[in-house]
C-alpha cells in the first residue's frame, strides 16, 4: 500500500519537552486520528511535518518526497487547517481568498464558490465577525479549493459544538469517497474519531504509544470492572491502567483473552472507547 505520509525517528528537543523518535505512516485513501492529551507532541509533530520548525533528527516523507527538499511541491498538494486562524481579520472572506489563491498553482475558483455555498459562509463578512465554527469552515473551504490530496488538520474541532463537529466528519467522509484523498486529524476529542477514523495514532509525552487501525485498537483492549478481592499483584500486572476505590476496581488490559482466562465470568468486561484507552494509558495505575 502506498503511503501518503511516512515519519521515521522524528526527534525534537524543546527543553522541558522532547519528541522522541516518533515513527508512523498513513496509507493513501484513509483517515488517521492523531490523539493524545494536551502537550503530548501532536502540534510539534505537525509543525515539523509542515517544516515550520527545525528538527533534531529523523525523516519525513510526504507523497514519498522529502518534506524539506520538496517543501513547495508538497505544500501545493497539502491542505492545512489549524487551530488558529492565519488569515486577515479585517478583510472579507472574498478578499482573503484573493490573497491566498495566488499561492496555489491549481486554485479552483468554482470549487471555492461551491464550498462557500455548501458551508453557508457569508462571502462579504469580515473574518473577525465570524464564529469559531465558521472560521474553521472557511479554512476548510480554502484548503479544499486547490486540489489537495492530503488534508492535515490540527485540532480543528476543539472549542466547537457537537453539531458542527458532526458536520465536519460528514465533510471528511464525503472527501474520502474519492480514493486518492487522505486525512490526518489531530485532536484530544476522541469521540469525533470513534466512527470515521480508519487508523489511530496515539502519542503521549513525545512518544508513540500505539499506532494501528481503529478496529484493532478497540478490539484489542478490554475494560474490566470487579471487586478489590479479585486483584492480586499477579493480576494487576495484566492491566495497562488500573483505578481503584473503596468499592472496586476498573482497569484496562490489552490482553482480552488472558483476562477471560484469569477471571472467568467473575468480572464485568466491556469494550472500551478511545477515550478510556487514552486515559488509562496516560494515568497508569492509581488509587482514588
Amino acid at each position, binding site marked *: 500500500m502506498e503511503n501518503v505520509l511516512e515519519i521515521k525517528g522524528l526527534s525534537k528537543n524543546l527543553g522541558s519537552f522532547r519528541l522522541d523518535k516518533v515513527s508512523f505512516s498513513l496509507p493513501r485513501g484513509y483517515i488517521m486520528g492523531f490523539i493524545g492529551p494536551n502537550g503530548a507532541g501532536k502540534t510539534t509533530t505537525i509543525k515539523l511535518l509542515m517544516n515550520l520548525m527545525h528538527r533534531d533528527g529523523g525523516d519525513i516523507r510526504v507523497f514519498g518526497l522529502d518534506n524539506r527538499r520538496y517543501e513547495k511541491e508538497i505544500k501545493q498538494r497539502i491542505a492545512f487547517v489549524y487551530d488558529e486562524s492565519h488569515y486577515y481579520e479585517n478583510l472579507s472572506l472574498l478578499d482573503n481568498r484573493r490573497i491566498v489563491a495566488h499561492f496555489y498553482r491549481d486554485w479552483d475558483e468554482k470549487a471555492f464558490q461551491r464550498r462557500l455555498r455548501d458551508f453557508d459562509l457569508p462571502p462579504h463578512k469580515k473574518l473577525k465577525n465570524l464564529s469559531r465554527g465558521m472560521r474553521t469552515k472557511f479554512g476548510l473551504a480554502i484548503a479544499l479549493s486547490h486540489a489537495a490530496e492530503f488534508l492535515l488538520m490540527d485540532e480543528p474541532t476543539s472549542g466547537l459544538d457537537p453539531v458542527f463537529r458532526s458536520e465536519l466528519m460528514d465533510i471528511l467522509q464525503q472527501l474520502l469517497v474519492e480514493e486518492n484523498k487522505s486525512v490526518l486529524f489531530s485532536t484530544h476529542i476522541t469521540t469525533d474519531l470513534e466512527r*470515521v477514523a480508519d487508523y489511530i495514532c496515539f502519542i503521549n509525552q513525545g512518544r508513540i504509544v500505539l499506532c494501528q*487501525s481503529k*478496529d484493532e485498537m478497540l478490539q484489542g483492549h478490554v475494560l474490566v470492572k470487579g471487586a478489590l478481592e479479585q486483584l492480586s499483584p499477579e493480576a494487576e500486572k495484566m492491566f495497562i491502567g488500573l483505578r481503584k476505590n473503596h468499592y472496586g476496581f476498573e482497569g484496562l488490559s490489552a490482553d482480552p483473552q488472558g483476562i477471560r482466562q484469569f477471571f472467568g465470568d467473575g468480572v464485568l468486561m466491556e469494550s472500551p472507547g478511545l477515550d478510556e484507552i487514552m486515559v488509562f494509558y496516560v494515568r497508569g495505575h492509581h488509587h482514588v
Partner: protein
Amino acid sequence: MNIVISNRSEEPIYHQIYQQLRGAIVREELKAGEPLPSIRSLARDLQVSVITTRRAYDELERDGYIETVAGKGSFVAPQNAELLREKRVNLIEEKLGAIIQEARSLGLSLPELQRIVELLYEEGL
C-alpha cells in the same frame, strides 16, 4: 435495503454490516448480479470507517455471498438454490442457538421450550 448500525452494541460494527448484507442476500432482497454500493460510499452513508466496511465486504466475499471485480466494484454472487436454502437454515440455527441460550439461563427445560415452539408454530406466528 436497510442497514442499521448500533454503536452501543457489543457486536463489532463490521459484523453488523456483514450480517445485514448477508441477510438481504439470503432473503433475495439483493439478487444475484446486483451491484453493491462501493465500500467508500457505504462507509460515508453509514458514517463508519472505510477499513470497517472493507472488512465486512472481504468476509462476504470469503463466504461466497459477493464477488468483487477489480475496477468495477462488488456484486451479489449467483447463489445455488440448494445452497441458499441451506444458508437460510443456518441462519435459523444461529437464531435458535441464541434462544436456547436464553432459555437455559432461565432454567427452561427442553420439553418446555419445545412446547412453546409447537404452540407458536401451530398458531402460524
